[in-house]
């Protein structure tokens, strides 16, 4: 035992069972997916070669990236406004706003997507309402296209964008903004030169969160896109369940994982990730 503890600190022995558990049930399947992507249907890089050869796959990846990017921009901009309003509201209204946000956060994505189906359909509330007040002559196509997918995804993602931003904004010292006003800067200057730069860690954190979550979105594109807007997650499920090409599915899964890790790595070169995920201001 003494010989053992000389080489391995006792702390490691304590965490060893949990470490093995994580390796077996988390890392194991990941390696399995990587393995599948290289061996199914036949050993080699065949699955990965499809990325350059298949137009359909390239289109799906491009659609996914575009929708995720647009979703991220809208969610973060709207989330920024909400977070700002919540942080600077009175305590009582702040509690109300947070409760409403969390209710929407907790409602199942399926329910929220079907709610949009009701609202945005040909005879939905939005179309019939706009027709009734004479804003439009015939129903606008909100669904079975990218617009519908974007509306549903942005709506789902806003709470995810708000929470890291709020955590960031709450750490800011209001006296710093007061100092800017005192030194002669008007509200716009104070926001642009002091507030916005100090909330960059929050913006990065919420952008990363929203973008990464959007990459794996399945339910909303499937329902609101109506099969016309195909994103990676839905394509993977088709490969798994319909065409049974597990190798392709595994390759796409690996690709997304690498993409997320690459994103984190690029960000880590510009700022300390602990600042981003700690949500704190740079001091």
């Amino acid at each position, binding site marked *: 035992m003494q010989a053992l503890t000389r080489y391995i600190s006792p702390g490691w022995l304590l965490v060893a069972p949990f470490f093995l558990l994580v390796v077996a049930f988390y890392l194991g399947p990941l390696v399995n997916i990587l393995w599948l992507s290289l061996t199914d249907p036949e050993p080699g890089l065949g699955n990965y070669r499809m990325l350059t050869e298949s137009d359909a796959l390239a289109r799906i990846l491009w659609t996914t990236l575009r929708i995720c990017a647009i979703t991220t921009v809208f969610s973060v901009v709207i989330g920024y406004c909400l977070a700002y309003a919540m942080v600077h509201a009175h305590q009582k209204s702040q509690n109300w706003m947070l409760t409403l946000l969390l209710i929407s956060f907790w409602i199942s994505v399926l329910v929220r997507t079907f709610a949009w189906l009701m609202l945005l359909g040909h005879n939905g509330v939005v179309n019939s309402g706009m027709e009734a007040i004479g804003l439009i002559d015939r129903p606008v196509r909100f669904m079975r296209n990218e617009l519908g997918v974007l509306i549903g995804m942005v709506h789902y993602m806003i709470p995810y964008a708000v929470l890291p931003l709020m955590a960031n904004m709450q750490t800011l*010292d209001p*006296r*710093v903004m*007061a*100092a*800017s*006003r*005192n*030194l*002669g*800067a*008007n509200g716009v*200057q104070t926001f642009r*030169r*002091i507030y916005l*730069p*100090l909330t960059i860690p929050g913006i990065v954190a919420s952008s990363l969160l929203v973008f990464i979550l959007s990459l794996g979105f399945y339910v909303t594109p499937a329902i609101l896109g109506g099969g016309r807007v195909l994103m990676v997650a839905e394509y993977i499920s088709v490969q798994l369940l319909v065409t049974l090409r597990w190798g392709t599915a595994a390759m796409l899964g690996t690709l997304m994982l690498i993409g997320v890790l690459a994103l984190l790595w690029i960000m880590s070169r510009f700022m300390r990730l602990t600042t981003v995920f700690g949500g704190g*201001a*740079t*001091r």
Partner: protein
Amino acid sequence: MSEAATGGLGLTTLTKRFGGFTAVDNVDLEIRRGEFLTLLGPSGSGKTTLLMMIAGFLDITEGDILLDGASIRDVPADKRNFGMVFQGYALFPHMTVRQNVGYALDVRGRPKAEIEARVDEMLELVQLSQFGQRKPGQLSGGQQQRVALARALVFAPPVLLLDEPLGALDKKLRVEVQDQLKDIHKRIGTTFIYVTHDQEEALSMSDRIVIMQNGRIEQLGTPTELYEKPRTRFAAGFLGKSNFLEMADGTHALRPEKIDIAPQGGLGGNARLSGTIRDITYFGAMKKYMVAVEGREDIEVGVDSWRNPHALHEGQSVELGWADHASIRLEEN
């Protein structure tokens, strides 16, 4: 920057209420141009609220603030051109020291060359010339305090407001910075309005002190006037220490260091009270005796340590004496 602004401020019946709570209550005050005025009071006395109203961060409930005779009641904070050093400094953490100091000129759209020259000048004034490229997080507390001062003075404001600027510093550094502040005040001649709850700071730096309590001015005067002639029990107890004695004509305040102490019979015919020493505390330069006197509260006596002619010890019977003019009769309140 308005050239006409020279820094004389008048507060007339200034009042601030938060709901039913009156934080500043009907304050009339004439602040002379170029003076170092300290607002001194315990927390909750309204001194910071008063400063925030002068800075323009809080609306005025009643009354007015006049700068060189003209009302600035409706002038927003960013148009008042008052410098301010905040509690905790409130430096911009993402900017360098130079950017912090130049900020006020930058947002006024001044030419680059002018800003650079002026920043150099200010950094020299606060002796931070070699730290221009650092971020505030890389500076010590004392250095940050000087950056805050340079940042607030860069646009030559007629009035500089300071909100407990030394609160975060340790005691030794605080004394050093007090001297620097006094020196800078003398050199630039700006009106300084200084908020603190530290009576030593107030005494050592100010031209005049305003003692505040419950949103009102308790007493206003030079440090000497306030220390030698406190008008109320609160003023006598808050600025320095006092013993309170009930005499035939009312309550008197008596400073500990103005009392003579000697063994029984040692004061000849000048003894006024006698008692026993309950406790002795040694402070280096001073010794403090707590003397229990029959039928009264304990009386505190302060004596220069080196002067201590009689080897007094705890439990000893002593007598106390003081000159007639040493005790000050207080107003009833």
